[in-house]
């Protein structure tokens, strides 16, 4: 499943496809959390295409690497990856949020093949990831546990309870990534509730800390692998990203958190504002 060779052009094209799909399925649904999905495209692609051991034909394979999307509203980017990897048909993608869908706005372990944990109430996923990592330690299993949290989500006290626990239990099989796009629903994080100095905080909590450009293929690949290699403590990668990346209409704007798409004209507007237009629909 892991791509042996990295071809930047191929991955750039893949990222453009992801962004087209995410934008299109959210527009079809009439609304959705687009900004925080677009900011994670390169990270999610790198994890699923270059790093994680997975088995799409056996989603619960016990030795697979796990990914817990603690910022559960980023479902659409994860669904795109899972469909591309073959966990379910790409024809499911446009059913996002439709009546009876198996792709709900927030990640649901009981609805979608390949989703490792139900999330959506912010702050809980990192604790769940600690539990998953602890179980692996107890059972002597060697797989990695990845957990993506949001910067706005980092306002939640429970994140810091999990931070204490992860370090105390030396969960070095846990690699957390903070999607630091500097925006939360009501505005810039530094204006709503400043979380800086973020690296210092995680370091003080006993985690190995890294920074990376969350849109740079080489940086993501290198940094995640460095984090995987860390021993005796969990890792936190602060990923500098741009909310709504690639969609000019909303890029780096608080409004990108959740867009409303009332009509076909708005749908067209968002698709046309994508920087890369050379896409084929896979569904």
């Amino acid at each position, binding site marked *: 499943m892991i791509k042996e060779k990295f071809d930047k052009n191929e991955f750039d094209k893949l990222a453009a496809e992801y962004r087209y799909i995410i934008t299109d399925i959210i527009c079809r649904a009439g609304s959705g959390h687009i900004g925080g999905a677009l900011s994670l495209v390169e990270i999610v692609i790198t994890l699923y295409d270059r790093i994680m051991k997975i088995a799409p034909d056996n989603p619960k394979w016990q030795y697979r690497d796990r990914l817990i999307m603690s910022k559960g509203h980023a479902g659409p980017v994860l669904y795109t990856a899972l469909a591309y990897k073959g966990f379910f048909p790409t024809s499911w993608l446009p059913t996002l949020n439709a009546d009876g869908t198996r792709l709900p706005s927030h990640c*649901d372990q009981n609805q979608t093949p390949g989703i490792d944990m139900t999330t959506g109430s912010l702050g809980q996923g990192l604790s769940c990831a600690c*539990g998953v990592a602890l179980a692996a330690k107890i059972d002597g299993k060697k797989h990695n546990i990845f957990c993506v949290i949001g910067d706005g989500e980092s306002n939640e006290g429970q994140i810091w309870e999990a931070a204490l626990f992860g370090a105390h239990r030396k969960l070095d099989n846990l690699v957390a990534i903070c999607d630091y796009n500097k925006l939360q629903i009501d505005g810039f994080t530094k204006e709503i509730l400043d979380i800086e100095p973020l690296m210092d905080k995680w370091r003080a909590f006993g985690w190995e800390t890294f920074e990376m450009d969350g849109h740079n293929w080489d940086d993501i690949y290198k940094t995640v692998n460095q984090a995987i290699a860390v021993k005796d403590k969990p890792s936190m990668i602060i990923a500098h990203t741009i909310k709504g990346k690639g969609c000019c209409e909303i890029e780096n704007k608080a409004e990108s958190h959740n867009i409303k798409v009332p009509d076909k004209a708005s749908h067209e507007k968002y698709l046309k504002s994508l920087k890369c237009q050379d896409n084929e629909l896979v569904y």
Partner: protein
Amino acid sequence: MLLHEMEMRAVYGQTLNELIEENPNVMCLEADLSKASGTNPCVAKKYPNNFINVGVCEANMISIGAGLAVEGKIPFCASFTCFASRRVYDQITISVAYANNNVKIVGTAPGITAGPNGGTHMCFQDLAIMRAMPNMHVYSPTDSYELRAVMRYMAKTRQPAYMQLIRSKVNKIFDENYKFDPAWAVVLKKGKDVTIVTTGYMTHFALEAVEELLRKGINAQLLHYPSVKPFDVETLVASAKETGIVVTVETQNIIGGLGGAVCETLSENYPVRVKRLGIPDKFGEVATEEYLFNKHGFGVKHIVAACMEMLKGNKK
């Protein structure tokens, strides 16, 4: 030592050890109240690898439990009732019930048994709020034998569950042969004059009330509900048909808990008059049981009086 000679919390710890012995996937999670729950040193010493103390982080404990459960572990997460239910209601709702993860939540020192800790710790709404949660079973065992049976059931069923745990020593009601099935209430006394419905701690006081009523020539039927959800409709309706009047007793707010379940069930199936005894929509306070029984009117003498009063107006 026989089970009924032990404190209930010691039975909790000892039973967890038995369950871990039988299935190493059973885990004991605590949030800095392990001595109060009876698992430290009992479980902590015997099975240190199955004993996880998360510190004073109840929210974290519940979601860690969910993470363990999704990997096949069977975590029993304990704290004082107030913290195990209302403080972590959203974590239980999403990480456990909505996700349908196999986590067992144990609320210790329920209702007025929180005594010296007073109003902040005296939780009167846990049965109501846990009962209102889809996917969640809600149990309140009354003695040591029932506690062990309920725990054994919890460990062997893949089912999110919440259980109240009385910490102190209580009188023996059942014995080694007791079998727990959440589908059924237990008819503790047969009678045709009035139905008394109880759960958990208050069953002991209702038993005394039944004896007192008997001395007055009144035959009360006592239904004990170890499972408040699922709720045994059949036994209640059959009893209501026989007696025509029902008194509920619980160490909970009379809104939404056992009394709520009884009223909902009867109004839909066989409407009869019901008197709910318990806490009349008030907060708790530091006090003895006797003081609280008298203040809120749900001790033995109040149960007797309520039954007598109801009988006066019974047209059966």
